[in-house]
Structure formats: C-alpha cells, structure tokens
C-alpha cells in the first residue's frame, strides 16, 4: 500500500536505556527505558514533580543524565549514542533534526524578532539563503498554523498566548524535524484555543510523519495526540502501553487514581 503502511519496517529512531538523573539526593528520573519509531507519538503523563520534564531535558540534550544511554538514529551516520557526541555536534543535531516546543512560548521564540523572522531563522541556520524563498516558506507556515499574514512583520510580543504557541510550533516544524519534543504544549491556554492547537498538531504530526514525545498532565491531550503513553510517578515509569489501554484499563494504583480523579477523558 502507501507510505502509511508498515510502521515496523521503519527502524527505531530513538532508543533510551536505563536513563537516571538525580539532583543531589533528589530523584529526577530513575531507570527509564523505551524506544520510539518514526511516525509514533509518545505521551508522558504524571503529577508535577514526577520527573517528566527532567526526562525530556535529558532526552533532548539539555541535561546530562547520570547513567544510561540514548541512541539516536542519525540521518547520515546511523545509530549514535547521544551522550558520546560533542557539545557542538549535539547542538547541530538539535537544530537540524529535532524540534523542541517549550511550555512557555517565550522560551522557544525570539521575542525581539518578527514572526516571519522567527520561522525563517531555522531554514537559514541550516543553509537556506534565498530571501524570497525563505519568506515564502515562512508565510506558508504562518498560514498552516493559522496566523494572519498581515502579522508577518509583527513581533511575537504583540501576540496572544495561543498565537505565540502556534508560532513556536511553526518555528519548530518548518525544517521538518524527525523528532519533536513538546513540554505541555497546550498548558496555560484556554480550552477552545487548546482544541484548535491540538487539532493542528494532530494534523501536522500525521502529515509529516514525525515522531513526537509529548509531556503533559492533561489526559485529554494525550488521548487525542499520542499512540502510546507512559505514566510516571516519583521518577519512575510505572505503567505504559497503548494510550487508550492505559487510560481505559489502568492497572497500577497510581494510574487508576489519576484516571478516576478527572471527570472525563
């Protein structure tokens, strides 16, 4: 059949084994292992302080884990242990192959650069030079995330929270990353804005076939976006599986509590 067929023929993109990180005596994340293939969306849920963001920071190269390995299948080199890459190599990889969508758009945007500039910066960083093409591509993406083109030259400072978050997504996806990390991508937005953003993300992830790791405390968000789910408590992964399985038939007491405490997902 078509390209959508046969997930299994795609090799593992990221293989995480036994990753742990503690802050002094404080547990960040403990012995986390999983793998993800192209086109898969993995959700990570758990209460605040359960280690979700620590894990995400370790995976995306912003924190050095104490132990474990993170093997990433690089486009031109094949599987490489991220922890053995040099800092500049890792930064280059993050720029070309990955996207990182921060909970707070201000951490992921350049607030003093225009919306168009925010989106055009990444293609430029990886070698695009033709101004007209860059601007056209930036506008194409602004349209995709439903930002009015008349705002192309405005600074994100003048945007609403939802618009800033959509701009951050455009900035991250414009270079077609193979792996995207998202930390509470819909946090702090009101419900109707969240729904639009979710719908948008869902469409883009499917259309581009990218792998994504999404950290959130919102079970409705993972229900809609993630194929697979990991539940974390006190730094450990305590339950994992297909998203609907984990949410509809949770086995671990903590997951049952988590699912039963919310009204409806």
């Amino acid at each position, binding site marked *: 059949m078509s390209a959508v067929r046969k997930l299994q023929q795609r090799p593992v993109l990221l293989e995480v084994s036994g990753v742990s990180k503690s802050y002094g005596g404080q547990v960040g994340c403990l012995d986390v292992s999983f793998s993800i293939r192209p086109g898969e969306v993995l959700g990570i849920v758990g209460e605040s302080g359960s280690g979700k963001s620590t894990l995400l920071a370790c995976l995306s190269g912003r924190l050095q884990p104490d132990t474990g390995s993170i093997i990433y299948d690089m486009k031109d080199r094949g599987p490489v242990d991220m922890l053995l890459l040099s800092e500049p190599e890792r930064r280059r990889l993050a720029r070309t192959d990955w996207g990182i969508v921060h909970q707070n758009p201000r951490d992921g945007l350049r607030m003093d650069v225009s919306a168009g500039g925010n989106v055009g910066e990444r293609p430029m960083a990886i070698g695009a030079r033709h101004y007209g093409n860059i601007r056209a591509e930036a506008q194409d993406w602004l349209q995709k995330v439903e930002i009015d083109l008349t705002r192309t030259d405005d600074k994100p400072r003048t945007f609403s929270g939802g618009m800033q978050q959509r701009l951050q997504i455009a900035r991250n996806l414009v270079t077609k990353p193979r792996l995207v990390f998202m930390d509470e991508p819909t946090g702090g937005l009101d419900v109707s804005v969240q729904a639009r953003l979710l719908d948008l993300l869902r469409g883009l992830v499917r259309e581009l076939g990218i792998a994504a790791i999404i950290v959130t405390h919102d079970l409705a968000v993972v229900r809609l976006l993630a194929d697979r789910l990991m539940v974390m408590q006190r730094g450990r992964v305590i339950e994992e599986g*297909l998203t609907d399985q984990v949410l509809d038939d949770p086995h671990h007491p903590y997951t049952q509590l988590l699912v039963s405490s919310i009204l409806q997902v």
Partner: protein
Amino acid sequence: MTIIRLHARGLSKTFTLHTQGGTTLPVFEDIDLQVRSGECVCLHGPSGAGKSTLLRSLYANYKPQSGSVMVQHDGEIVDITAAEPWKVVEIRRFTIGYVSQFLRVIPRVPVLDVVAEPAITNGRSVEEAHAAARTLLTRLRIPERLWSLAPATFSGGEQQRVNIARSFIVAYPILLLDEPTASLDAENRKTVIELICEAKVRGAAVVGIFHDAEVRDAVADRLFEIRSTHREPTEIPCKPVPDLPTIEAVA
C-alpha cells in the same frame, strides 16, 4: 471452506479496583471464541455480564489477565494481546474496525473529515475518501448541511451514525460492533443491517452486541452466551452458517 479470522483462546478478565480497597471484579474466564470470515457472532447475556468487556478485549482496548486473541493480519497470524503498541496501531488501522457506543469527538473537525479519516490513514486519496464518506453519510441520512460541522453538538443518534460511517468506510476484515443501533430509528436500523450484511458478504468476520431482536435476527449467525464467571460460556446455534468461500477465492 472458511477461514478463521479471529480466535480468542482461554481469555480471562478480572478488574482490580485499587481506588476502592483493592476489590477484585472477575468478569469472564477461559473464553474460547472463533469467528470465521463472513460470519456474525452476537455476544449475548444480561447487563453487566461482560459483553462490552469482551469486545474491548478483542480490540486490545482492555488487557486480559490470560489467554490470547489471534487475528489474521496482513498474511500472518498475530496475538493482539501480546503485540507491541505500534503493531496494535497497525492492526487497528488495517484489520480491525470497532464501533464504540459513543463517538469520541475530535474537536473542531467537520463530519466529512471525521468519517474520511480512517480511509485516508489507510492510504486512500483524499478525494476518494471524501467521496466514500459522502456516500455513507447519505445512506445513513445525515443531512448534507451537517457535513461541514463538527459533530460535538449532534444528537445521540446522529453521532452514532457518524461513528458507524467512520467504521464502515474501510473494508476491515474484522468488525467489532457495540450496540451500533442502540439510539437509531427504524429506517436507520435497516441501513445498519444492510451495511453489516454487505460486510459479511465481502467476507468480514463480525462480532457484535445487538440488544434489538430485529437487528440480531437479521445479522447474527449464532449467539455467544456470556454468563457470570465460573460458569462455562455456551454457544447456541441460531442459524446455520452458510459455507462461504474464502476472501482469496472471491477476489
């Protein structure tokens, strides 16, 4: 000769409710169910007997304690209870369709796209998928003026018909139906009966829960009784199963 598309063997399910003092709730035990190509099996039993639980277990939505659910998928036989998540995603994409009792609404997405989506992820072109969606929505009497709206505000029966259209747009070899006609009027019930019969003719193996006797009589080849646990489930023949050719032979 017919091929067995789905075979549940030794399937047992018990819920443990940790938030309610660790109460255990045995639902069924050691179930054995084989469903052949072109056959429709109706799960039968009183409310709370575990019909929906069994159906969800066949879809890998619930995790049984023991047993296996072997399905014919893409030329091989796979145990869906033991398959890795990406494999289950693939099996649900191409092999097993499931009509739940309620439509899980995707915010903001118009009905036409909601219905077309499974066909598109299945590799059909957007035009083809939309054409098929229009045909199904018309057959199920969803007025055209609703097609561009999101189904969140639809009536129960309208949402159920959207749900049915979404699950019949792909010619799944296995179909699981949980009370697909529960909130439908007589005319629409008839359409759903037609859809199920067409699916059987093209060789689908169907497992369903049908409370409505008229629907059950029209589509079911046999009943599969689920009684409370610790008793043997029994099979009651309802109609003789015609000796259908295999899918391969038809093609």
